[in-house]
């Protein structure tokens, strides 16, 4: 494992499996009367959030607290950032306060990578612009594995042969990129489905296939992951109207019926009900949306434990 978790591309197959297997062990903690472990006692985790987020921030906070780490929450609103303080100065301030890990969400792609050059502790990318969101990909992989490859199916436990269709706003979605990279590392076959205007130019170099027709992909999918239409990042017209998008690329009840019997429906949240996913689909038994949130805490516990639970990384001078 690296000292930081910046990109899903940094994870080898064995790193990714180590995180998922660790999460599998940690999952049982959630069912216990005492949901707390002493493992990270005396370590400090800073949540540095320059962008709004509910589930990711709370999820990281819960994960760190269950491992007994001290958590400092920082959000740009109401801080010195409003007075014009830059990322570097904020980072150095946090460093001086003794942060062992910084969890960062930022609207600029590459912010986590830049931060990693400035601080001694571990940096965990919790979403940087339209670049990556590796812990989301890890929790999605964990959810897929628990549903479709439960333990005891034998051997080393990847996602080999599972067909995953990711549909929606790939251009603005960091979740898509991280998922494509991680799921293909784990052996899954990923297909992206989106209108051509919502696919990045470089998609041809990603380890996945691309389609523009959701209906033809659904019968071949074990997993369908719907991505949110990120209206806050759209400053141009990417499709004629929300209604037309929804009709061609939204997952409604009729489309869900085309999925194989065992297939699951995922969404990283927050959802636009009625746009990319119909309310009936989101609330159906195939949907893993609530499960994904619970798994998020578990997977983030595994990441924090593996980054902070052992000796300080060699080569890091204190």
């Amino acid at each position, binding site marked *: 494992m690296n000292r930081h978790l910046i990109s899903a591309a940094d994870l080898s197959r064995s790193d990714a499996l180590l995180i998922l*297997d*660790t999460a599998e*062990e940690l999952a049982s903690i959630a069912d216990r009367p005492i949901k707390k472990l*002493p*493992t990270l006692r005396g370590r400090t985790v800073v949540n540095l959030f320059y962008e709004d987020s509910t589930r990711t921030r709370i999820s990281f906070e819960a994960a760190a607290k269950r491992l007994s780490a001290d958590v400092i929450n920082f959000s740009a609103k109401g801080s010195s950032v409003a007075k014009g303080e830059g990322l570097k100065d904020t980072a150095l301030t946090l460093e001086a306060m003794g942060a062992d890990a910084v969890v960062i969400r930022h609207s600029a792609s590459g912010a986590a990578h830049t931060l990693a050059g400035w601080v001694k502790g571990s940096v965990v990318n919790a979403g940087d612009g339209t670049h990556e969101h590796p812990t989301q990909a890890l929790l999605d992989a964990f959810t897929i594995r628990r549903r479709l490859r439960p333990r005891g199916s034998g051997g080393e436990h990847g996602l080999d042969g599972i067909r995953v269709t990711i549909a929606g706003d790939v251009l603005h979605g960091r979740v898509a990129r991280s998922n494509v990279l991680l799921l293909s590392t784990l052996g899954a076959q990923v297909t992206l489905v989106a209108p051509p205007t919502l696919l990045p130019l470089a998609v041809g170099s990603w380890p996945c296939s691309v389609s523009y027709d959701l209906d033809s992909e659904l019968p071949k999918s074990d997993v369908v992951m719907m991505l949110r239409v990120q209206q806050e990042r759209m400053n141009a017209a990417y499709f004629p109207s929300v209604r037309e998008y929804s009709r061609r690329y939204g997952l409604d009840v009729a489309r869900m019926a085309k999925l194989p019997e065992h297939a699951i429906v995922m969404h990283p949240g927050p959802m636009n009900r009625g746009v990319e996913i119909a309310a009936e689909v989101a609330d159906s038994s195939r949907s893993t949306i609530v499960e994904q949130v619970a798994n998020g805490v578990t997977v983030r516990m595994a990441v924090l*434990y593996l980054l902070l*639970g*052992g*000796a300080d990384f060699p080569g890091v001078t204190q």
Partner: protein
Amino acid sequence: MCAATSPAARQGLAVLDAQEIRRALTRIAHEILERTHGGEQVVLLGIQTRGVPLARRLAARIGEFEGLDIPCGSLDVTLHRDDLRLRPARALGKTELPAEGVDGKTVVLIDDVLYSGRTVRAALDALTDLGRPRSVQLAVLVDRGHRELPIRADYVGKNLPTSQREVVRVLLAETDDSDVVLIGETA
């Protein structure tokens, strides 16, 4: 070292062979039955990794003697260790409790080697988070001395006087293909 040396000889001298391990476990099984009034309310918990197969063997042995089905589980203590910061983060083992849990039971913790006592300390903490046993006992295959904490075993397979420079390794068929306890010098 010459090429003819067998791997076992390089790892050290055998102090318990498969027969002796079997006899030690048989005796411990009888002792557990004696001290717990016939295995009443007993749960065996093996400490990862080699305590787990030992716990299963003891449960099977007790089953043979008394026809009892003693619940048996595993306990991973990694997250409760006090030496986590001395080594890189370790992969976790399985913690599996029997369906009836540990509340109100007599839990017998089982490990291969008792040395500093720090693993057992971590196990006691881990157990506290899982429930409230009526009492906790400790069974080990080998007690090699050099305790750093006030902890002792209730059932001991073999007391093995050692120097702290020596390494004691327990190999079991389930994890290492053969049953033997080795003692050797540190490399």
